[in-house]
């Protein structure tokens, strides 16, 4: 599909598709892009795509830290994020909280940086805390750019982003039928760096092309869960040896688009509620049961044959979550593979062998 080539180009060189001085970087799904967009900027999700390694990042982080922030910092130090006008970091996890600190300490030339503190539970007190933090972020943006983020502007952005999420949901429904999980991941990466209106246009085009596209080859139906998964080549390995990723539960996937923001409420409250109370990631506590339930439902709904749990080395959060999932999948007799890897960490052959052996086992069970 030709439109997929366009998405690929975005990933390879995002700054080409963005207006100079009009982009603000952000980390993680709990930073409401709507607030950045309402200020007249394109929210650009930070990623390690096309990063060259960790050597520069390692000067600040230790080898006991996750490869994601080490790579993103490395990318920052290489100047790859020089086009950003500012960055909203977030306390997603300890490693990423320290990415904010090390980014500043390394004196990377970003005009401004901000650390958004997002609560770790969904209680009423947490919601109020989050509303408060979002208000602080708004004040910060307003004071830097000497502008006012009016309710109407935020509402318009909410509407646009809701459209984008709906389109992504629509595209996602083609997975395993006409679209590979690998291509969907590429679409996700591209649409989280593109201006949302352009992203929507391209997603519209993609949906038209998908409707006319031939069915893809039927294979084992796999669900991928985890946190940070952004390596297209990793998904290629998973799919090229006999599987289709039909659904996911990752940051750059369903956890991004399975979220609805109310248009009825006061916009900041609506954003806080929508973001905090949507399907959570393991950083949110007292919600494990719901998360697992959601995956179990997806396993049934998408007739999943096997689950791959992705965990990055040194990720405490996924260590716990992955272990709990393993216990539950074992009870349910859902075949699963817990895969620990470094982001772009190589070892392709080893990973391929492990997945291949897992597929053999799953096929034998069928």
């Amino acid at each position, binding site marked *: 599909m030709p439109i997929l080539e366009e998405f690929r180009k975005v990933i390879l060189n995002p700054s080409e598709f963005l207006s100079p001085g009009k982009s603000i970087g952000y980390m993680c799904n709990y930073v409401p892009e709507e607030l950045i967009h309402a200020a007249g900027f394109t929210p650009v999700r930070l990623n390690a795509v096309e990063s060259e390694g960790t050597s520069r990042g390692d*000067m*600040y*982080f*230790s080898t*006991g*830290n*996750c490869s994601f*922030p080490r790579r993103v910092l490395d990318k920052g130090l290489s100047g790859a994020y020089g086009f950003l006008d500012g960055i909203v970091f977030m*306390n997603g*996890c*300890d*490693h990423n*909280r*320290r990415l*904010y*600190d*090390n980014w500043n*300490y390394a004196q990377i030339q970003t005009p401004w940086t901000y*650390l958004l*503190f997002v*609560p*770790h*539970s969904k*209680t*009423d*007190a*947490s919601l*109020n*805390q989050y509303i*408060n933090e979002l208000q602080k972020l708004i004040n910060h943006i307003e004071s830097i750019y000497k502008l006012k983020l009016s309710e109407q502007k935020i509402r318009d952005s909410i509407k646009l982003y809701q459209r984008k999420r709906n389109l992504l949901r629509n595209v996602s429904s083609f997975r395993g039928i006409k679209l590979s999980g690998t291509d969907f991941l590429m679409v996700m990466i591209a649409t989280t760096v593109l201006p949302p209106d352009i992203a929507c246009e391209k997603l519209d085009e993609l949906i038209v092309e998908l409707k006319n596209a031939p069915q893809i080859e039927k294979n084992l139906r796999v669900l991928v869960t985890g946190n940070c998964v952004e390596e297209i080549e990793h998904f290629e390995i998973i799919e090229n040896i006999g599987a289709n990723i039909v659904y996911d539960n990752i940051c750059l996937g369903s956890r991004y688009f399975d979220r609805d923001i109310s248009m009825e409420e006061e916009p900041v409250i609506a954003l806080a509620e929508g973001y905090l109370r949507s399907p959570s990631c*393991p*950083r949110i*506590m*007292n919600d*494990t049961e719901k998360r697992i339930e959601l995956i179990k439902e997806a396993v049934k709904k998408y007739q999943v044959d096997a689950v791959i749990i992705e*965990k990055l*080395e*040194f*990720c*405490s*959060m996924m*260590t*716990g*979550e*992955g*272990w*709990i999932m*393993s*216990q539950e999948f074992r009870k349910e007799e859902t075949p699963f593979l817990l895969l*620990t890897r470094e982001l772009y960490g190589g070892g392709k052959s080893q990973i391929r062998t492990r997945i291949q052996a897992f597929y053999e086992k799953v096929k034998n069970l069928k």
Partner: protein
Amino acid sequence: MELKPYEIIKKIYYASVLANTVFKAPRTAWWLLKASSAFMYEKETLFNRSNRFGFQKIGSSFWTPEELDAYRHDSLATSRVYGRLLKAAENKTPVVWLDWPVPIEIVKGFDVAAYVPESFMIAANIVGTDGHVACLEAVERAGIADDICAMDRITIGAWLTKQIPPPAAIIAVAHPCDAGRTTNQILEYMTGAPAFTINTSYTKNDEDVMLYSKNLFEAIEFLEDILKMKFNWQKFEEMVHILNKHNYYLNEITAMNQNIPSPGLAYSLQAAWLSKIPCAGDPDIMENARKIYEIAKKSIQNPEHRHRKEKFRIIVADMPIVFTELFKWIENSFGGVVVSDYIGDAIYPEIDTSSRESMMMGVARDRLYAGMIKQAHGKASETIDDLERQISQFSADCVIFNGHQGCRHNRALSRMVKDVCARHKIPSLMMEADIFDKRVMSEEKLKKELTDFFRENGFA
């Protein structure tokens, strides 16, 4: 090592009772410790393995009779906590588990036993240094990877090896780290107990502390609902008043440690931190602090009475090693005095006792200032500024950073720590140890690294 059910808490309880009894005659106790130090102190052997850790925790033979007398109160408070826990296990009465950044006062206001994993973890070697390892191995056997801090894995291991009674409820905290967050979720899953998470704040400003305290009010409501009991506000108020006095002494001791020569009480402050976690609001730990304060005052007034010369001053800018006592070993072997560390450095603000709300804000803020939470809960400046202050205030000659394996946010700051020390023109040692797990770096290796560092930098 095979652990019997409740073996660790039983031993903590009996050791505390014993210490409280023996220290009633502090001079005799001192002579006893002195006499036994020949085979208890130097290194772990087959014969001292199960008691050496406890021996070190009561100051080996380095505490003076006055310090032993002070520590008696600590033992008494500790024995009360663990005695109650054992009784609850026996009678199957409710036990509430709570993380250490949760003010224990909100549980002690109920008539229930409280279990604080962090306090247990530090003391778990009471059965020998294999106590921690036994808990860790149980976790490994359960298939949980070692990407989680050993401190938290020990709690999971304690549950798996039946060292702690089941919880009626868990009060968890969201900060300061991922390991704590994930461990709470694992324990919630394993025990099936109802859990409530408190979002401690990432900054120390009033607005954030207010939100943190609102979480505490919600937690009390949650406990009232689960335990079917009413919270005793009068008891809470009494505890806050004691806490204020307790903090006054701790703050004073910390300030006096800045003196040259230092009274060398960082180890006592660390012990006070440890007892404050499960015993805050207990008059005996306040009395312990008061007596140490008197000792510090006397030491400053009569520096010639210090039995060892202070040759150089050290800051331990990370969590100290728990499975062996190093502060006194360094002092004894090299004349290096640990004047401040990540844990014991006490700068607690006074709590406004004018209303329930102000007191709740006060206890919330108090835990934000507790060692480890103080440095770990927000931006890097919380740690780095603190280190800068400690280096200047305590006139440090060098910094030791243990590089605790499981502490991801702290390890992400190693460059900044090194640069701070370089700016102050003092050497720093960055180790790759683990505070609990001796399998990562043994006592011998730790001592060798420290010896090499002191020699290379002209301290020895």
